[in-house]
C-alpha cells in the first residue's frame, strides 16, 4: 500500500458570501473581486511547504494537478510545482506523482513530454507520469479545445508522448491533431521506456476501458469518499477481469479527504468549517460548465443520461456532519480514521491512497498537524496492506526498496 499526499492549492480566503455572489467556482469568479496576488503567493508557498513536510513525514508520494480559471485549485502548470518538490526531496524515498499535466490543452504535447522528462531527471527517476484528460471547463473553456475532440486529442497526444520518450531515432509525427516533422526529445526520462503512467477517470466516461487496455494505473479522483465509490470500483474490477488483467490492487488509486485529530469530537470540530468551505464554495460547479456537449463520447453520454450517480447530490444543502457521516470526508481520531480507511482500501481494492489532507480554507498549521498525525498514527497501519501478495508495477523502480516500517504507535488512550 502506498499513501500519497494530494494537494489542490485552492484559494483559502474567499469572502464569506462568495457562494451568494457566484453561481460557480469555475470561470465566473472575477480575480479583482475576490483574489489577492500577495495572498496567492503565500498559498503557493504554503502548498509547497505542506507537500515537502509530508515527504519528510514519511508519505510515499506527492501529488500535484492542473486546473484553470477557478478558485478551487489553480496550479496552472503542475510541472512548476513539481520542479520545486523534485529538487526538495532529492535523497528521499518519495515519488513525484503528477496528476498531472493535461495533454489536450497543451500544443504540442511534446512540451509535456519534455517537462516530465525534466522532472524525472531532476528527481533521479522518481516521477509517476499522470495524464488526466482535464476537466471539461479547463480544456474547452479555459484552453479552447473543441469539446468533441478532447478525448481524441488526448489519445493521440499520449501516444506521441510515449513514443517521444523512448524512440531511438528522430521521427516524424503525422497525426490528425498534431504534426511534427522531426521529433528528437531532449531530455529523455531516466525511467525507460517510460515512467509509470497513471490516468485519472471519473468512472462515467470510457477512460477506464482505455486505461485497462493499456495496462496503466486508474485513479478515481472522487470527492465523495470510498463509501460512495463501490459501484465505480466494482465496474472497474469487472472490466479488469473481462480484459484478462490480474487483480493487482496497485492498478487502482483513490482520492480521499481526511482530517485527523486527537479525538473524534476534536476532529469534527476542527475540520467542519473547511469541509463546508470545500463543498460549498470550491466544489460548486454548475452542470453547464462541466456537462459540455461533446466532452463525453456518445456511448458514455447515453450511459450518464441513464444513470449518473452524482446527479442527485445537492452539496450546498449539506452540512459538515453530513459530509462526515456520508464518508465524503473521513474525520476522527487516528483509530477511527485508520479503521475507516482500511475498510475502504479493502472494499475498493485500493493500492494507492491519495490523501487530500489539505482541503478548503485550512490554514497551514492545521494542515501540517493533520499530515503529522496521519504520518505517525495512521500511515504505519496501512502501508503493509497488499505487499505480501502484490508488487506495485506502477511505481518508480528506484523506489521499490522496502521502506523500514515505522514503529506503530500505541493506541492513544483518548481515542474514541
Amino acid at each position: 500500500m502506498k499513501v500519497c499526499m494530494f494537494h489542490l492549492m485552492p484559494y483559502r480566503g474567499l469572502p464569506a458570501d462568495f457562494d451568494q455572489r457566484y453561481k460557480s467556482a469555475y470561470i465566473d469568479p472575477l480575480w479583482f473581486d475576490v483574489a489577492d496576488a500577495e495572498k496567492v503567493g503565500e498559498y503557493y508557498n504554503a502548498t509547497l511547504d505542506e507537500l515537502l513536510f509530508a515527504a519528510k513525514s514519511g508519505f510515499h508520494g506527492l501529488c500535484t494537478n492542473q486546473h484553470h480559471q477557478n478558485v478551487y485549485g489553480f496550479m496552472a502548470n503542475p510541472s512548476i510545482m513539481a520542479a520545486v518538490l523534485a529538487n526538495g526531496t532529492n535523497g528521499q524515498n518519495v515519488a513525484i506523482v503528477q496528476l498531472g499535466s493535461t495533454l489536450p490543452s497543451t500544443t504540442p504535447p511534446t512540451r509535456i513530454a519534455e517537462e516530465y522528462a525534466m522532472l524525472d531527471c531532476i528527481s533521479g527517476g522518481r516521477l509517476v507520469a499522470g495524464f488526466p484528460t482535464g476537466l471539461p471547463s479547463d480544456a474547452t473553456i479555459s484552453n479552447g479545445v473543441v469539446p468533441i475532440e478532447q478525448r481524441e486529442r488526448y489519445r493521440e497526444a499520449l501516444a506521441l508522448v510515449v513514443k517521444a520518450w523512448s524512440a531511438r531515432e528522430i521521427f516524424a509525427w503525422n497525426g490528425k491533431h498534431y504534426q511534427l516533422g522531426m521529433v528528437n526529445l531532449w531530455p529523455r526520462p531516466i525511467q525507460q521506456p517510460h515512467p509509470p503512467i497513471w490516468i485519472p477517470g471519473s468512472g462515467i466516461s470510457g477512460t477506464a476501458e482505455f486505461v485497462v487496455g493499456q495496462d496503466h494505473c486508474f485513479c478515481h479522483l472522487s470527492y465523495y469518499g470510498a463509501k460512495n465509490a463501490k459501484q465505480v470500483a466494482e465496474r472497474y474490477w469487472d472490466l479488469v477481469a473481462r480484459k484478462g488483467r490480474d487483480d493487482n490492487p496497485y492498478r487502482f488509486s483513490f482520492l480521499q479527504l481526511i482530517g485527523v485529530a486527537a479525538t473524534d469530537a476534536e476532529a469534527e470540530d476542527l475540520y467542519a468549517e473547511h469541509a463546508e468551505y470545500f463543498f460549498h464554495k470550491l466544489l460548486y460547479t454548475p452542470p453547464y460548465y462541466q456537462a459540455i456537449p461533446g466532452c463525453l463520447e456518445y456511448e458514455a453520454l447515453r450511459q450518464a443520461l441513464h444513470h449518473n450517480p452524482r446527479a442527485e447530490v445537492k452539496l450546498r444543502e449539506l452540512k459538515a456532519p453530513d459530509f462526515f457521516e456520508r464518508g465524503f470526508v473521513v474525520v476522527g481520531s487516528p483509530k477511527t480514521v485508520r479503521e475507516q480507511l482500511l475498510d475502504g482500501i479493502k472494499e475498493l481494492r485500493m493500492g494507492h491512497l491519495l490523501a487530500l489532507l489539505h482541503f478548503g480554507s485550512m490554514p497551514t498549521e492545521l494542515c501540517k498537524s493533520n499530515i503529522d498525525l496521519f504520518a505517525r498514527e495512521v500511515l504505519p497501519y496501512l502501508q503493509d496492506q497488499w505487499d505480501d501478495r502484490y508488487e506495485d508495477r506502477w511505481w518508480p523502480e528506484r523506489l521499490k526498496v522496502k521502506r523500514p516500517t515505522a514503529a506503530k504507535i500505541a493506541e492513544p488512550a483518548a481515542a474514541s
Partner: protein
Amino acid sequence: MAAVDVRRIKLWQDRIDTEVEIAGSGPPLVYLHGPWGLAPDRAFVARLAERHKVFAPKFPGTSAGDPNSVHALDGWHDLVVYTGELFDRLELDAPALVGHSFGALLAAEFAAAAPGAVGRLVLIDPVGLWRDDHPVQNWMILSDAARKVSLFADPDGEAARRFFEVPADPAARVDALSQFIWAQACTGKFVWPVADRGLARRIHRIAAPTLIVWGGADGIVAPLYAQEFAKRIAGARVEVIAEAGHLPQVESEERVVAAVAKFLR
C-alpha cells in the same frame, strides 16, 4: 402534411451515413438545421414542403446509429466539400438553400465556395460573423434558465415549452436528450469556442439572391448582425421578426414561412 421519405445515403468514402428527410413536391429546396438537430425544425420543414420538394439532411454524426462519423470531417474545408458531395448525390441543380443558425453558416459558406450551386439563399439567424462589442453567445454552455431566455422571445411560451419538452418514458428521455446534446457536440466541432471561422473573408463570393431572416429578440446573435450580413452580400434583403428569438422558424413559424414563400416565389 406531405409524407416524409427518409433516405439513407453513404458519403465520404462510406465513412458518413446520412439520413435525408425528403418531402413535398415542387422546386427543390435544401434545409440545413441548426445546433439542436433536425427534430425541433420538422414542423417548419413540413410547411416548406407545401410548395417545394424539401431535402433535409441530418448533420454528420446526428443520424441514427452513426454518431462517430462526425470525426471523419476535420474542418471547414472538409465540411464544405462534403456538402458538395451531398448535393451531387441528391442530384440537386442550384436548389434554394435555407439554413438556420449553424446551418445558415454552413449554407453561407457553401454558397460562397460554390456560387453556382445555390439558386437562392435564405439565412435564418446565422452565426459566423463577429463583433467584439456584441459577442455571439456560446449556446453550448448556457444554464437552462439562460438558454430559454436567449433562444426565445417568450421563454414561457408554447414554442419554448415544446422545444425543451423531454419525454416522461425513461428510454425515450435518453434518446431525446442524447440527440439534443450530441447534435450540439457535432455542429459545435466547427465553431467552438468562437463562432467565427473567417466567413467575413469569403462571404463576398455569395452570388445567390439572399434573404436574411432575424428574430428581433435573438439572445444568441444580436439582431444587429442582420445588417452585418446584409452589407456583405450584394442585394440581400432583411426581414426582422420582432416577436421571435433565435429560432423564428419555431417561435413564429407562420411569418417565416410567409417570408420565405414570398422570397422564393
